[in-house]
């Protein structure tokens, strides 16, 4: 009897672990990132940031925050549409988490090796837009609704250049599977020493990366594109009515989204889990290390930008997207294709 249970349990455990690995990563990352962001902000603004909770530089600050959030009262306004109000955080986090399924964390680990990985990823992240609108609408609050609409407009607008630049990589790689895409970038052949990362393979891909990076800033609602939550204008955007753990879930999803897009950028442009030094420091574990390093580097840049640049106005935001990024990204797509044809 124990044998049968064991027979079932062993693969089941394996599966659960398999599915929980990214979750662990996200949670750890979130704790670190929240703390890190405050610290970075502090240093940039020439102050110290959180110092008290925990020992070294207030390392336990995020954990304290978490504990505080768990104890907070959960308020659902009477006028809100209860089901949607409750449902939105589920959808938001589940969607952004499901997207991690196709991210190749290491040469040995990918959640689900489907052959339309990127496509799936982009499709699933679109659900975020939906949950944002849902949250905004369900709150039955003017700020929420306006924030939700703005956020949706912003997300859908910037989705176009994001996807267009992703397409440029697909054109070069010829595959939608992120594992394959990463594998294609192994080796150090460019100019004899540079790694085979796509960003080095084609000069127009550098342009593509810049566009991509700007777009993911907007996609994940980071400054200078953080209009949906711009506290000074819209109180709290679509999250205005949320409190406690529900709000925390939105926050978590946003951080996860940031990580996700950074990791995607790392996979597409910077060789994913490939070591920058060829065979040196390669292997599954080192792969994971390099991958997270690249991703966190991008996250760091995003934080850096946050505390450096002011926020755009909503019309400027749209103008940047529609009049500059979209045409540019498609022209770039054509140029990349042309380059690929000629060379």
């Amino acid at each position: 009897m124990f044998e049968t249970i064991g027979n079932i349990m062993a693969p089941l455990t394996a599966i659960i672990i398999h599915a929980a690995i990214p979750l662990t990563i996200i949670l750890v990352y979130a704790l670190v990132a929240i703390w890190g962001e405050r610290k970075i902000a502090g240093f940039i603004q020439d102050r110290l940031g959180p110092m008290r909770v925990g020992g070294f530089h207030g390392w336990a600050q995020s954990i304290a925050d978490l504990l505080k959030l768990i104890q907070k009262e959960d308020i659902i306004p009477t006028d809100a549409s209860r089901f949607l109000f409750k449902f939105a955080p589920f959808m938001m986090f589940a969607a952004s988490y499901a997207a991690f399924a196709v991210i190749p964390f290491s040469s040995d680990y990918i959640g689900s090796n489907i052959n339309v990985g990127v496509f799936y990823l982009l499709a699933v992240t679109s659900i975020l837009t939906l949950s944002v609108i849902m949250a905004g609408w369900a709150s039955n609050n003017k700020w929420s609704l306006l924030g939700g609409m703005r956020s949706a407009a912003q997300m859908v607008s910037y989705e176009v250049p994001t996807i267009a630049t992703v397409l440029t990589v697909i054109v070069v790689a010829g595959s939608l599977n992120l594992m394959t895409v990463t594998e294609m970038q192994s080796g150090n052949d460019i100019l004899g020493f540079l790694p085979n990362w796509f960003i080095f393979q084609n000069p127009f891909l550098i342009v593509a990366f810049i566009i991509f990076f700007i777009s993911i800033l907007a996609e994940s609602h980071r400054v200078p594109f953080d209009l949906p939550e711009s506290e000074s204008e819209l109180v709290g955007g679509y999250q205005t009515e949320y409190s406690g753990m529900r709000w925390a879930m939105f926050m978590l999803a946003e951080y996860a989204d940031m990580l996700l897009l950074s990791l995607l950028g790392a996979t597409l442009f910077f060789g994913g889990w490939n070591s920058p030094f060829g065979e040196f420091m390669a292997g599954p574990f080192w792969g994971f290390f390099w991958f997270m390093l690249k991703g966190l580097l991008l996250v760091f840049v995003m934080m850096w930008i946050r505390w450096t640049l002011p926020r755009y106005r909503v019309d400027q935001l749209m103008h940047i997207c529609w009049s500059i990024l979209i045409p540019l990204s498609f022209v770039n797509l054509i140029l990349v294709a042309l380059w690929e044809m000629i060379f």
Partner: protein
Amino acid sequence: MIEDFGYVLLFLVTGALFVGVALFVSKLIRPDRPNAEKLLTYECGEIPFGNARVQFNNRFYIIGLMFLIFEVEILLLFPWATVFKDVGWLAFWAMFIFVSLIFIGFIYELGKGQLKWDIPRPIRPTYVEGVGVMEESEAETLKKSA
């Protein structure tokens, strides 16, 4: 292949479960003492007026529309991109024509100013001799008519 999609489902479920567990844990700990004022819709401390489901700007719709067009374009470009290198020049020109056709429409839309976000014009009060304080543009028309 099908199993791979099973993993995708698994991830979705895990994500949702995590939210559920987190909320459940917090439910065990957190206080629950609602009162009418807490449950009021937040409008910067004022008592909210009217329904929040107001009509909003038409631009949102146009943005949505444009997004739709590009999204659909991208939908068609994905299969193209994967086979691009195998097909070669033909694929390049096909995409070129396709994208440029859409861009002609896009440029038309841009040129017609459909994608410009309205910026509310600031209302500047001015003082008009004998009339009093009024809006600038009204003052202009008043001047012209006089």
